[in-house]
């Protein structure tokens, strides 16, 4: 016989009691481990989907600009063209936005489908050239397209010249491509995407040649994909990335960067020029450094188009003009080369406001040195907007049309101008208005003879100040030139310069981004939210109820074995030893229960996932979720469950010290410490006062200030009031001075019932607390549901007063808020008329991860919006908090975006939910993004929006946006402040008129509703699991009532012997039961209502009070029914047997 034997005997003998304990432990373990398994499953499913999306791709190269297709061969991997656009069924008009358009080479089929699979190549990659397209299943479904149907793909053609630069052609970018559906793509192309996305991906696979022709990028690609062995070690991946970058740097030539080196043998120089007219700043830096490394003196040139060269200040008052001329801004080196022919360079250097005309222009104007010359020119403003400006110069000298001064090479290569035979043939972009009537014959003669030879020269510094300073994002030079020195061949010079330049150009700064695609997919697959913790918090009340029930059942078991405990104490077992014996016994049961709970956990997780796929699909939109389980979660869940059970057992066991051996031996477990009530009362009064005071204080503080986050205030105040309420009930139970029950009848039975309710105060309080906790969560969550009221449309509401939000798959090249923009966009008169009468904000959009709660993946590259000055000045929206430092900023926190922070951080504003839960950032914190030049730039959170429509993006000012993302032209998001009655008709009009840009117009209320639906769905899940906790609490109540009744069978028998009717006794028990139920429900509901009072007072609550009342009533009735059945069985037993037992 050992203590172990004693425990074994007890386990066997009391197996029924232990089974109940094991069941409670099992419930707790199942809920806890199940929640962790939900987390595993979310991560596992996201990871699977992320890997499914990228297929065999390990690394990828994405580029803002296309490069020679041959690079794919040299670098290995699969080259393709990848664009984002929209699709439309040519017949039905069904549309799909955010479509990935992939130009795939059928020769790369084995990249996607390993030959070992033996699949036919065409299943993955469309067949060779032809006007065909293969759709993935999701896109085919969305369009309702089947093989043989025609569809229209809409995308932006890559522009050589940035659309928003002076000579950009935004109107020519949008492209429609009519193709015939050849088939439906199979894996891996069905889900292929380099970006992790939980929702559906729309893929249109087009033969590479077809797409290259369509976008005028013959033999070019913009993406390379690499397969390779799966590497998991970070160092190995970094090494591979570094190797790919090095190889890339060595492989790309100047043409891939959109550059060319022109050798002018006639004038003896080498000129670096850009296909985009202006040289990128990174190229400028690299080229100047390369030239200097060769010991050469680079000459920098900025050539520009002047609308007029005007001779002013003549005595006759007549202004003479030369229309449409090339003017070159030249630095000192260039000035010496160009103007050096006149008198040994006395025209150089040029002062800030000095100009040199060539002989032709001077003769035409009749100008002499010392005259005043005014240049009239355009500068680019917003997209599609050119602003005419002018500047006056002093004519310093006149350059003869010889040597470099007669070099037409100053004019950058620009389609429609540099290749025009006559001035009349000029084909500038539409925003650059040319008045053909002003062109004279002599102008045409000049063009025929000298082409783009500049008619005037100014200093480079002045040129840049006038023409590029306002918007230098595309560059500030048109050429960097090096003169050939005697004895050196220009070809050699060009070759050396090219080598030196390539060494200095960082492909990343030119927008060539090599990415560890698989690693990034896995990182994103970790998810934006820890669903394990989320579901643990959802299941908190189930776990808490299970823990309480473990303690309660264990305590009931102990009470049944009170005599045994008393005997062992009498036999010399110390309290410590007794605790150990009973706790170990209980733990063995808890371990068995928790182990069984692991099996149940799988079922629980499965049920939760089924809920997430169906009932709660609104929250996650992830139908691909499947069960994943890690041994770690089982281990943690098991250990935590056992630990919780152990704590419950310890607390329950600890109470036994309060009972004397004598009372234990008699089997009556009742506190006989006569000082107990007084001490308990004091503690209860203190707890009650503190609970209510703290709860009220927290709520008031949260309502009048932002010192405490609302969520914290909610839980803390609710918890405090709830504890205070339980203490108040405890106080009521221990109150003295009861008047004796003297008069008979139902009232006496009611009073007797109430008296009974306080007999086992610990038990009764435990049950009231469980019911209170569960009803607290059900009421609090139910009352916290958000609705979207029309107030959201107020200027200071979540939609900022904007009723419609339009998103474009292909950025709009013009601002629909301006008359010219509407005209250029080709809006119908009706749409234009409506837009003309309302406020429209066109925001730039840098595509990226959806940062809203609709995205399950971890957000590493959030979408960025560029807010124009008008939007910032207008203000509006509801702010949770901001870094506003003065009254003006407080009145309109958007103005914080205009700040220029000393440390270079970019001010940004985001929705509080997005920042808090997805980006995990608070006010004043930085979030790093990568700009178009591949540099990490910190965004500083300067304000947080509250419940806004802008949850998917971070907002920065347009000024900062243009600097960070010069390659991102056009407007991706339009906000429209149209009256409600007009907005309904406007949405379909805009979608129709702007369908070539894949514009999707939705109501801002609908959009906020979608976000709110996610919150509400989570709340439903929380509520449902809270409900299960409440059911468990009710079961606990049933168990306690049954135990109470069994203990009192003798008492009932006695009452019957004394002539009490059964109905009276049932009434007495029901009153006792109702008192506990009502106490729990009232405490829980009351504390919940107090906690959510601020939310209810805001008026945005969408509470289904009827449903909540029904739930509470159902709980009450279920509790009453179980008690009624228990007491009915107790009073029906044989009277004498029960009396004898007594």
């Amino acid at each position: 016989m050992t203590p172990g034997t004693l425990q074994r005997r007890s386990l066997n003998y009391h197996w029924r009691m232990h089974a109940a304990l094991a069941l409670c432990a099992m419930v707790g373990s199942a809920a806890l481990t199940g929640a962790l398994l939900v987390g595993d499953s979310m991560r596992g499913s996201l990871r699977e989907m992320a890997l499914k999306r990228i297929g065999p791709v390990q690394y990828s190269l994405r580029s803002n600009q296309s490069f020679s297709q041959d690079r794919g061969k040299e670098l290995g991997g699969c080259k393709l063209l990848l664009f984002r656009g929209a699709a439309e069924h040519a017949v039905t008009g069904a549309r799909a936005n955010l479509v990935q358009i992939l130009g795939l080479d059928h020769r790369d089929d084995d990249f996607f489908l390993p030959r070992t699979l033996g699949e036919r190549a065409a299943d993955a990659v469309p067949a060779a050239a032809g006007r065909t397209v293969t759709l993935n299943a999701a896109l085919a479904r969305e369009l309702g397209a089947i093989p043989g149907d025609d569809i229209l793909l809409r995308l932006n053609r890559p522009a050589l010249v940035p659309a928003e630069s002076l000579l950009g052609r935004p109107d020519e970018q949008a492209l429609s491509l009519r193709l015939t559906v050849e088939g439906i793509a199979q894996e891996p192309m069905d889900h292929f995407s380099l970006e992790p996305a939980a929702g559906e991906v729309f893929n249109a696979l087009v033969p590479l040649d077809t797409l290259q022709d369509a976008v005028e990028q013959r033999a070019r690609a913009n993406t390379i994909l690499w397969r390779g062995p799966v590497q998991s070690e970070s160092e190995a991946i970094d090494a591979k990335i570094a190797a790919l970058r090095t190889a890339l740097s060595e492989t790309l030539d100047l043409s891939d960067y959109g550059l060319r080196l022109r050798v002018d043998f006639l004038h003896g120089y080498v000129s670096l020029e850009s296909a985009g007219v202006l040289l990128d700043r990174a190229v400028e830096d690299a080229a100047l450094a390369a030239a200097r490394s060769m010991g050469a003196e680079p000459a920098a040139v900025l050539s520009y188009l002047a609308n007029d060269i005007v001779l002013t200040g003549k005595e006759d008052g007549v202004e003479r003009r030369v229309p449409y001329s090339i003017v070159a801004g030249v630095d000192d080196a260039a000035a010496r080369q160009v103007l050096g022919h006149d008198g040994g360079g006395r025209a150089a250097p040029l002062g800030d406001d000095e100009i040199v005309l060539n002989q032709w222009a001077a003769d035409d104007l009749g100008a002499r040195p010392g005259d005043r010359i005014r240049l009239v020119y355009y500068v680019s403003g917003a997209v599609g907007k050119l602003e005419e400006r002018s500047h006056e110069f002093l004519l310093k000298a006149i350059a003869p049309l010889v040597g470099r001064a007669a070099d037409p090479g100053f004019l950058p290569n620009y389609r429609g101008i540099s290749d025009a035979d006559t001035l009349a043939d000029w084909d500038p972009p539409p925003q650059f208005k040319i008045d053909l009537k002003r062109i004279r014959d002599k102008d045409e003669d000049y063009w025929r003879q000298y082409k783009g030879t500049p008619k005037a020269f100014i200093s480079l510094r002045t040129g840049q100040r006038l023409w590029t300073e306002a918007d230098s994002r595309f560059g500030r030079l048109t050429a960097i030139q090096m003169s050939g020195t005697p004895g050196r061949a220009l070809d050699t010079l060009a070759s050396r310069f090219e080598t030196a330049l390539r060494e200095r150009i960082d492909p990343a700064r030119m927008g060539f981004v090599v990415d560890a695609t698989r690693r990034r997919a896995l990182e994103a697959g970790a998810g934006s939210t820890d669903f394990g913790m989320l579901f643990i918090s959802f299941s908190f009340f189930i776990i808490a109820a299970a823990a309480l029930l473990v303690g309660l059942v264990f305590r009931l078991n102990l009470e049944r074995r009170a005599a045994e405990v008393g005997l062992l104490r009498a036999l010399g077992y110390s309290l410590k030893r007794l605790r150990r014996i009973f706790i170990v016994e209980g733990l063995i049961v808890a371990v068995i229960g928790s182990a069984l709970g692991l099996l149940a956990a799988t079922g629980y997780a499965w049920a939760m996932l089924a809920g997430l796929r169906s009932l709660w699909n609104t929250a996650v939109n992830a139908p691909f979720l499947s069960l994943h389980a890690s041994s770690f979660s089982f281990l943690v869940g098991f250990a935590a469950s056992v630990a919780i059970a152990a704590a419950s057992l310890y607390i329950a066991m600890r109470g036994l010290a309060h009972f004397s051996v004598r009372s234990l031996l008699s089997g009556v477990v009742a506190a006989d410490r006569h000082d107990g009530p007084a001490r308990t009362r004091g503690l209860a009064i203190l707890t009650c006062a503190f609970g209510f005071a703290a709860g009220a204080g927290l709520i008031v503080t949260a309502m009048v200030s932002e010192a405490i986050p609302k969520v914290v205030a909610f839980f803390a105040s609710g918890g405090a009031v709830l504890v205070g309420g339980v203490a108040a009930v405890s106080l009521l139970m221990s109150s003295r001075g009861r008047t004796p029950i003297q008069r008979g009848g139902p009232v006496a039975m009611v009073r007797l019932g109430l008296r009974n309710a306080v007999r086992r105060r610990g038990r009764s309080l435990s049950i009231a607390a469980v019911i209170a906790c569960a009803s607290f969560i059900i009421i609090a969550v139910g009352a916290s549901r958000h609705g979207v009221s029309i107030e959201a449309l107020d200027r200071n509401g979540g939609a900022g007063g904007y009723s419609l939000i339009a998103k474009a798959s292909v950025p709009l090249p013009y601002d629909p808020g301006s008359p010219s923009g509407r005209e250029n966009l080709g809006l119908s008169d009706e749409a234009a008329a409506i837009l003309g009468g309302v406020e429209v904000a066109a925001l730039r959009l840098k595509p990226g991860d959806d940062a809203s709660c609709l995205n399950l993946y971890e957000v590493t590259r959030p979408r960025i919006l560029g807010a124009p000055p008008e939007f910032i000045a207008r203000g509006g929206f509801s702010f949770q908090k901001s870094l506003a430092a003065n009254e003006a900023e407080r009145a309109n926190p958007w103005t914080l975006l205009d700040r220029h922070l000393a440390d270079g951080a970019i001010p940004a504003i985001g929705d509080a939910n997005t920042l808090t839960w997805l980006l995990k950032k608070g006010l004043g914190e930085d979030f790093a993004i990568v700009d178009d030049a591949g540099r990490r730039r910190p965004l500083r959170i300067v304000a947080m929006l509250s419940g806004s429509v802008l949850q998917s993006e971070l907002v920065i000012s347009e000024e900062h946006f243009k600097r960070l993302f010069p390659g991102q032209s056009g407007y991706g998001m339009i906000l429209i402040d149209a009256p409600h009655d007009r907005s309904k008709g406007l949405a379909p009009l805009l979608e129709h008129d702007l369908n070539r840009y894949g514009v999707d117009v939705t109501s801002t209320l609908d959009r906020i509703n979608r976000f709110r639906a996610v919150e509400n769905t989570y709340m439903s899940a929380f509520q449902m699991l809270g409900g299960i906790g409440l059911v468990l609490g009710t079961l606990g109540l049933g168990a306690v009532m049954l135990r109470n009744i069994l203990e009192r069978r003798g008492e009932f028998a006695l009452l019957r012997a004394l002539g009490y009717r059964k109905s009276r006794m049932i009434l007495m028990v029901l009153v006792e039961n109702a008192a506990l139920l009502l106490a729990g429900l009232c405490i829980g509901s009351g504390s919940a209502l107090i906690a959510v009072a601020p939310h209810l007072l805001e008026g945005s609550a969408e509470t289904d009070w009827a449903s909540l009342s029904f739930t509470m009533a159902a709980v009450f009735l279920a509790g009453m029914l179980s008690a009624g059945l228990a007491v009915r069985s107790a009073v029906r037993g044989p009277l004498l047997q029960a009396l004898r037992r007594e």
Partner: protein
Amino acid sequence: MVEARNIRKEYPSAAGDLSVLTDVSLALRPGESAAIMGPSGCGKSTFLNILGTLETPTWGSVRIDDCDPFSLNEPALAKFRNKSIGFIFQDHHLLPQCSVLENVLVPTLVQADADAPARARALIDRVGLSARLDHRPAELSGGERQRVAIARALVNQPAVLLADEPTGDLDAQTADTIAALLLEIHRERKTVLVVVTHSSDLARRFDRRFQLREGRLQPVQPA
């Protein structure tokens, strides 16, 4: 040696302190036995519990084998009780999940004791239950259960045996047998035996008899 001096016991209650024992003294040498009688509620069991260290006196002192048990901390007091005091209760309190042998061995589990099983078997044999070693309490009669309780009380060879109405639930013949057994063993082992009983027949078998009245212990002279 058991010595109780000026024992007073009061219970606090809402109506004020309730005095159960006012001034009780008793001294018994090894081998002596005593029976305490008195009406219900007079404090007999309370006094027995104080002697058995299950309750602390409000006033007064108890010494058992020259030790003041109430000066010990809880673990030491439990150990003292385990080694020095054997209890026999009216309703025997056998563990229903354990066999006869196991019930007798329960007190020996507190400290490792290699001789305990042999001692327990000998005691069970002594009380006449060697044929029922593996039986459970539910399979025994009331008298047999009380014999098991006596064996359990003696298994740690205590100096003091305390019995609270040991024959209260038994018929006259069984009660007589149990009383005889108890006294025989007491004499064999020279323990101090204190029995609380209503039965004057049982009390008559003891060396010394006391009546507890109004909180005081009064010796009963032999008839």
